[in-house]
């Protein structure tokens, strides 16, 4: 029987960069951690999920890879206080791989650099293309963790880092690696803000997933890193499901069949029934289209009684980081077990049901899920270009 253990984890997001703080805030009655940020759009402020603390410095020998995206990854690693390095220490470097996921890479730095060129000042000396190219994130993480095995960046919009976890498991199964650093990192930037504004996908206030009043998403930035091995015990990645909508570049198929296929695929892979899943982390962006198709798909697969919620009103839609960050949230849910029940992240919305949507059981404040068998949670990530991925995690007794 194959195992895939999420051995160590670090995360940095709007809720903080220490797991204990993130867990406390995530599982408490909702306090949105979004902040108003000017400068992302030319004409207005945006409510976003930002990592506001001072980020670690990127060391001089990696100066060429100096960008906020890579610094966010370092912040997530630092918040784990050596747990990631510790988990990797027993493996030979050539047997350690890296699969990193991002949609932005160093586009903040590239944007400033392009502006400098247009102003006639040429490329800034601190800019290098290695900051912008997507492969840069994997190179940076490989150098940071001393990983000398296969190392690449995966980029499939909002499903990116969920798919990074899936591919990490595959590399272990293929025997190409004994440990993989799987990560998702994305940075707030003008390019994404302007692009989503052009698509009219941004909410003017906090996003309101599954509400009849929902009107778009909030952007967020984050980093989440895992060390994944073939060990048994602890928190296991037991199921992965993937599909493509084959429908439209920036809208999901309203029938929700792609999302449904990803969820059913994960359940089949894990060999569990929908009833055994105690909680579903929804993709739940708060856009009219995502929530409509996702609610139908979730209801078809899990019914309307499985507790579910979206964290995006609290941390923003962290795009390439969302899959890994929300898997990290699922780990925190699984680790919260006390007196036979899991604490669940509340769904932060105005409570106004949309009659056109399925009537999902959205988690209320202080709600817990009684453990009645296996400890299983699921997480959805659905992205641009119709890339869908669902993960199922299990906490095994150990």
């Amino acid at each position, binding site marked *: 029987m194959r195992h895939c253990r999420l051995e160590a984890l670090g995360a940095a997001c709007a809720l903080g960069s220490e797991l204990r703080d993130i867990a406390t805030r995530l599982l408490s009655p909702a306090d949105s951690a979004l902040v108003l940020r000017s400068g992302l759009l030319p004409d207005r402020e945006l409510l976003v999920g930002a990592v506001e603390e001072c980020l670690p410095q990127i060391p001089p020998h990696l100066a060429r890879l100096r960008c906020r995206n890579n610094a966010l990854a370092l912040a997530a690693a630092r918040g784990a206080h050596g747990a990631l390095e510790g988990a990797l220490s027993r493996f030979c470097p050539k047997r350690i791989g890296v699969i990193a996921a991002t*949609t932005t890479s160093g586009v903040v730095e590239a944007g400033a650099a392009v502006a400098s060129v*247009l102003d006639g000042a040429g490329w800034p000396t601190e800019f290098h293309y290695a900051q912008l190219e997507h492969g840069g994130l994997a190179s940076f993480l490989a150098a940071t963790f001393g990983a000398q095995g296969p*190392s690449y960046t995966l980029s*499939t919009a909002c499903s990116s880092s969920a798919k990074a976890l899936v591919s990490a498991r*595959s590399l272990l199964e293929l025997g190409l690696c004994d440990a993989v650093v799987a990560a998702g990192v994305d940075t707030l930037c003008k*390019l994404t803000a302007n692009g989503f504004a052009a698509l009219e996908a941004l909410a003017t206030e906090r996003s309101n997933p599954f509400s009849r009043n929902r009107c778009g998403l909030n952007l967020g930035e984050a980093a989440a890193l895992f060390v994944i091995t073939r060990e048994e015990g602890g928190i296991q990645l037991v199921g992965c499901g993937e599909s493509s909508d084959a429908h439209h570049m920036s809208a999901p198929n309203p029938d929700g069949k792609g999302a449904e296929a990803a969820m059913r695929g994960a359940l089949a892979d894990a060999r569990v029934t929908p009833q055994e899943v105690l909680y579903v982390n929804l993709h739940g962006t708060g856009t009219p289209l995502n929530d409509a198709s996702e609610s139908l798909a979730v209801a078809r697969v899990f019914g309307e009684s499985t507790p579910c919620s979206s964290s995006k009103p609290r941390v923003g839609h962290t795009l390439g980081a969302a899959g890994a960050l929300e898997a990290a949230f699922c780990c925190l849910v699984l680790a919260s077990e006390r007196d036979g029940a899991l604490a669940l992240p509340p769904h932060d919305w105005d409570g106004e049901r949309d009659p056109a949507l399925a009537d999902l059981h959205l988690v209320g404040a202080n709600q817990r899920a009684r453990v009645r068998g296996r400890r299983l949670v699921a997480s959805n990530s659905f992205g641009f270009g119709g890339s869908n991925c669902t993960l199922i995690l299990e906490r095994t007794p150990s």
Partner: protein
Amino acid sequence: MRAWSAWAPGLETREQWLAWSREPRLTARDGAPAVRFVPALQRRRLSQLAKMTLQMVQELAGTQHAGFVVASRHGEVHSCISMLSEIAREQPLSPTVFSHSVHNAPAGLLSITTGNCAPSSSIAAGRETLIHGLIEALALSQRRAAPVVLVCADEALPAQLEQFADEGSCSYAFGAVVSAAHDDGEIKLRLEFGSRAVEPVANSELPQALRLIAWLAAVARTIDFSESAERVWSISRVE
């Protein structure tokens, strides 16, 4: 590897590639396949990269597969630089250009134009993009228990970025149907990773995918891709 194909400006047929492989060199920058199998309205929105990617899948369509991996070092970097310029000038972005500029746009377009709901993936790995594209394709093939299509493609860098280039900048696409199963396929290959003394690579200016095409067209047993003595990937033909 069940089948393979390649496209570059002026290099479209297997014969042209075989002739090219006798003296491999950087391909040209400009030009795109006609992709007339894509409806005209969609076609005009496609970048050179997207067209080359779609062309590869079209040419490999006869071989069964259950997913796509698109490996591109630079992705839609032309679009990216152009959008960053518009932002610097405080001009609004086109929503279509933005949604077609994500790194996985070619893969998304593949699934949309072929109506294929199988999963796809998009990766980048600097100079090692081709090798890691193969690895991701093996990973996807293993979990789908079926062959998958790998396309490794890049456009030549925009002129303003050429000063940062660490390899030759040119436009090309390589496509192959690959399978993780041992007993599958007409070209059986072994992928190894390790460190050993290797001959300095004569054509290290060439992107990995072009070197692979040249090797596939030739008769040598093994090809090495080495960034350093400690980091050597080898692909060998297996009888």
